[in-house]
């Protein structure tokens, strides 16, 4: 029995992200040919108090919902904010509202997918037709994964290549209007406000007394206004704002009235609308050239992380996450708290963290700075901890994008220059030499001369007294010696990467695995299910799973040779190992980035087969069970490695 044959179609559109009326294909589906339409949003007030989302994020969300409600009211409809969990409440709604159609935007994230599958099941049990449309991302992410041979690409370059080989994203759809609604009505009960109204922030248990006005007001109307200003009449200014590198001033570090990232996160703004506006602007400013893919970098990085996370429920963890390198991070709650509460004693770091807490947004360079400082740069604290703090405070922190960025910043995945740490003094000074940004967010340092504002502990006593700020009294002393910490940390990262790349020479750069595939097998936690991992240096099947699985025979042979060499070298001199291995390391040299599709030379295709083989292998193990076997093989694998006597050469 087809649902549409029933005389009366009663639709529910379920808002989650995608809090907008423009370019909302699922919403249009809900309106199409329906007699009634109800737009719902689920909010669990109990969850609100208990969750670790900060007040800025809740305020932004509620503003989005209010805006949505008022826009819907202009269409004689309104928003139903339902208190509770979808899985508990949908079955009742289906009955009560005689629902025949349920529509929502596709959620690509693992937990969203799980939740949606459960709701789909409930809907089908209730005889409700479900329509799902992709509109939070530019592309259908499954298509990208499919194009890459069934696994998400793991470098951004690879991702760019795939995307540029695809059709451009679909153009944005028109907004929902009265005309499109036609005869479709929204039945509103008298007690709608009490039952389904948008709650106030204090109803969710937040203290609103001491709250500053929102720097980032939520909602679709605000988003569209910003977009309009962004691409306003003065296209040259807009171009500069978007594409030219900011320099020598604090202004890019401040919240811009044109900023859009939180709006993209909550779906107040369609990424496809933004995409087409960018293209338009490009064509206006650079009339001759066709837009290069880097034009869309901001959108594509987001898309890249969504894709990478789509099939990986442990994307936000180190343990059990097949694409994450295991790094022996320090567990240090006090140091973490100093970072999160802007008490590190490094003005540049503390100003950024203050801005984040107050306003809910920081510039991407600032994100690099604080993330590097917390993890591989200075404090050696797990990126997962930093990710949680961002999740609480950052308006645009989405599960995939947030975790993905932290994986990158901490050099835990997606290959980075681990040898380059952002200096908590020098980096900020390069961007904003005068330190206006610091003065704004750390008024206590306001009177320091520019010369010392990034390292006030180096200021002579009289300068500190003149600035009415004595370091160690009015503002903390630096919590670490950056030179010493970065020396230690780079050495640790070098050792970790060295083990991964199985490179034993002296070169620091050569230890950065040049192809992400090598790291895919890096997580030991695959232990039992995937015996081979890169951590075992020379055991027979181990080393090359990632890269050259189809050559197992050959690689096995080579390993036995290496093994003998090692055995011998213990008797003679361990030093022959190094030169041997240094030479051998060239075998592993793989082009820097997987740009195979556009670069026919150099045996690219063979490599991509290997790459796929590696990926398949790893992802085959990426089941929920993989975590259970996690800690298993640790000791033993390392022993195995040591058995080859390469524990710490070089």
């Amino acid at each position: 029995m087809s649902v549409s044959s029933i005389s009366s179609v009663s639709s529910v559109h379920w808002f989650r992200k995608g809090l907008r009326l423009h370019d909302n294909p699922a919403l249009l589906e809900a309106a199409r040919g329906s007699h009634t339409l109800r737009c719902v949003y689920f909010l669990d007030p109990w969850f609100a108090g208990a969750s670790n989302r900060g007040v800025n994020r809740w305020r932004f969300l509620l503003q989005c919902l209010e805006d949505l409600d008022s826009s819907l009211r202009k269409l004689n409809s309104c928003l139903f904010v339902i208190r509770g969990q979808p899985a508990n409440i949908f079955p009742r709604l289906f009955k009560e509202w005689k629902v025949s159609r349920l529509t929502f935007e596709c959620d690509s994230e693992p937990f969203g997918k799980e939740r949606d599958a459960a709701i789909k099941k409930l809907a089908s049990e209730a005889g409700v037709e479900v329509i799902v449309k992709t509109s939070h991302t530019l592309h259908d992410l499954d298509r990208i994964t499919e194009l890459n041979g069934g696994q998400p690409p793991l470098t951004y370059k690879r991702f760019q290549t795939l995307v540029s080989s695809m059709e451009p994203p679909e153009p944005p759809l028109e907004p929902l209007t009265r005309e499109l609604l036609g005869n479709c009505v929204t039945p509103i009960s008298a007690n709608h406000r009490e039952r389904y109204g948008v709650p106030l922030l204090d109803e969710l248990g937040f203290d609103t007394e001491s709250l500053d006005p929102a720097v980032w007001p939520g909602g679709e109307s605000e988003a569209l206004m910003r977009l309009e200003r962004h691409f306003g009449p003065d296209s040259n200014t807009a171009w500069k704002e978007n594409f030219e590198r900011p320099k020598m001033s604090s202004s890019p570090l401040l919240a811009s009235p044109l900023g859009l990232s939180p709006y993209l996160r909550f779906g107040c703004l369609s990424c496809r609308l933004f995409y087409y506006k960018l293209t338009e602007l490009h064509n206006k400013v650079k009339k001759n050239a066709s837009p290069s893919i880097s034009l869309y970098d901001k959108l594509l990085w987001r898309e890249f992380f969504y894709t990478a996370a789509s099939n990986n429920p442990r994307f936000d963890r180190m343990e059990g996450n097949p694409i994450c390198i295991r790094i022996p991070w320090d567990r240090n709650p006090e140091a973490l708290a100093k970072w999160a509460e802007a008490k590190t004693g490094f003005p540049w770091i503390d100003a950024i963290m203050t801005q984040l807490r107050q306003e809910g947004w920081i510039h991407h360079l600032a994100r690099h700075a604080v993330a590097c400082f917390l993890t591989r740069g200075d404090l050696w604290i797990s990126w997962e901890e930093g990710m949680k703090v961002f999740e609480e405070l950052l308006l645009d922190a989405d599960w995939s994008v947030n975790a993905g960025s932290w994986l990158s910043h901490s050099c835990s995945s997606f290959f980075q220059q681990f040898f380059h740490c952002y200096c908590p003094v020098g980096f900020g000074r390069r961007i904003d030499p005068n330190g206006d940004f610091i003065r704004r967010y750390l008024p206590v340092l306001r009177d320091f001369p520019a010369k010392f504002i990034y390292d006030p502990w180096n200021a002579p006593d009289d300068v500190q007294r003149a600035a009415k700020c004595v370091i160690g009294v009015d503002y903390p002393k630096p919590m670490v010696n950056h030179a010493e910490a970065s020396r230690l940390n780079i050495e640790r990262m070098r050792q970790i990467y060295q083990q991964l790349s199985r490179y034993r020479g002296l070169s620091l750069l050569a230890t950065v695995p040049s192809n992400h595939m090598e790291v895919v097998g890096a997580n030991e936690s695959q232990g039992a299910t995937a015996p081979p991992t890169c951590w075992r240096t020379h055991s027979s099947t181990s080393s090359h799973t990632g890269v050259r699985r189809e050559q197992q025979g050959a690689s096995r042979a080579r390993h036995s040779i290496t093994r003998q060499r090692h055995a011998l070298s213990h008797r003679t001199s361990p030093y022959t190992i190094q030169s041997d291995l240094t030479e051998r390391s060239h075998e592993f040299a793989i082009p820097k980035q997987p740009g195979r599709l556009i670069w026919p030379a150099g045996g690219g295709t063979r490599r991509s087969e290997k790459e796929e083989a590696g990926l398949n292998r790893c992802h085959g193990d990426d089941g929920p069970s993989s975590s259970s076997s996690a800690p298993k093989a640790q000791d033993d694998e390392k022993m195995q490695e040591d058995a080859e006597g390469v524990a710490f050469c070089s």
Partner: protein
Amino acid sequence: MKRRLSREREDSPSSCEGPTDSCKRVRQPTEDSGDLPPDWARLPQEILLHIFQFLPLLDRAFASQVCRGWNEAFHMPELWRCFEFELNQPASSYLKATHPDLIKQIIKRHSNHLQYVSFKVDSSTESAEAACDILSQLVNCSLKTLGLISTARPSFMELPKSHFISALTVVFVNSKSLSSLKIDDTPVDDPSLKVLVANNSDTLKLLKMSSCPHVSPAGILCVADQCHGLRELALNYHLLSDELLLALSSEKHVHLEHLRIDVVSENPGQQFHTIKKSSWDAMVRHSPKFNLVMYFFLYEDEFGPFFRDEIPVTHLYFGRSVSKEVLGRVGMNCPRLVELVVCANGLRPLDEELIRIAERCQHLSAIGLGECEVSCSAFVEFVKMCGRRLSQLSIMEEVLIPDHKYSLDEIHWEVSKHLGRVWFPDMMPTW
């Protein structure tokens, strides 16, 4: 049999969780023993040993419970040559530690078999103490390599020096054929190095002791004077002296292969001594192929004494901001340079400096640039001059400043062309 297995599994010495899988694997043959030839136990020891070498420790432990023969194989010395002790506290680490029972077992039954031992220690003092406790019990073994590795903040430094020294010297005195020793970030001191020299001077080949503040130049000189087989040495700049270089280039001494120097500033404005060119020349004459790896973590104004004269550095790493001027001197005075990493530089482009380095450092094959600026055309010129010998080229995208000749989109083609392989700049996420 089954009952025994499951009982023993519980008090199995291994620390690891999730043993069910491996257990099943082992149990399978015993349960189906009716169908299988029953002479597994008669597998020759050497074959068994070979198989065991491929098994993780936990699996070996399970296998050892199958029969007496396998149990004997489990304890064969060959399987206990190497061990890495992982010493972590739940309060300071996310990683699991080697189980205390396993440690006891090893000390009791296998310490005399150990040859290659390392300790991975987290940031807690307890872990460092535990490492010392184990060390001081290694009395009847003969270690060839020993590594003390801090995986987070160095914790050995927090121990009472005497406690650490006495544990370490137990190993020095008892293992008379130590060849490799890695003791970075520890409170090792001159007298303990004397003990090392007295017992292991004939065998010592590798010594890594970066950031050991209690060692003096005289202490390390004593090692270089006596240990003529030393081929690899890592230390901080304050221990480096002309005398040390001369001792390492004396006729009695074998060719040095690697020398790693960390130049770290403890407080801004620190003064550093200079090393004579003649001392470096002596080194190069004696060990023409030796690698000199230098890591600099200095403030910009502390570079005064460095790169004034020719220096045989091969791998050069600038961890903090370094001035254009110093990089200019690098181009002039580092003819043996193989790898150069510059993490940060001022706001002026490094164009001429790079070109000069390409011109004069004929062996340069790896370069990494972080927060620096280079114009696209100068960079292309640099790559063109170095050509295919540039095997590692790691450049942040922001480093490259587009100019009239090349845009950012064009540069990867141009550079790829000169390198003969696909190349892209490194990118950080913008989100």
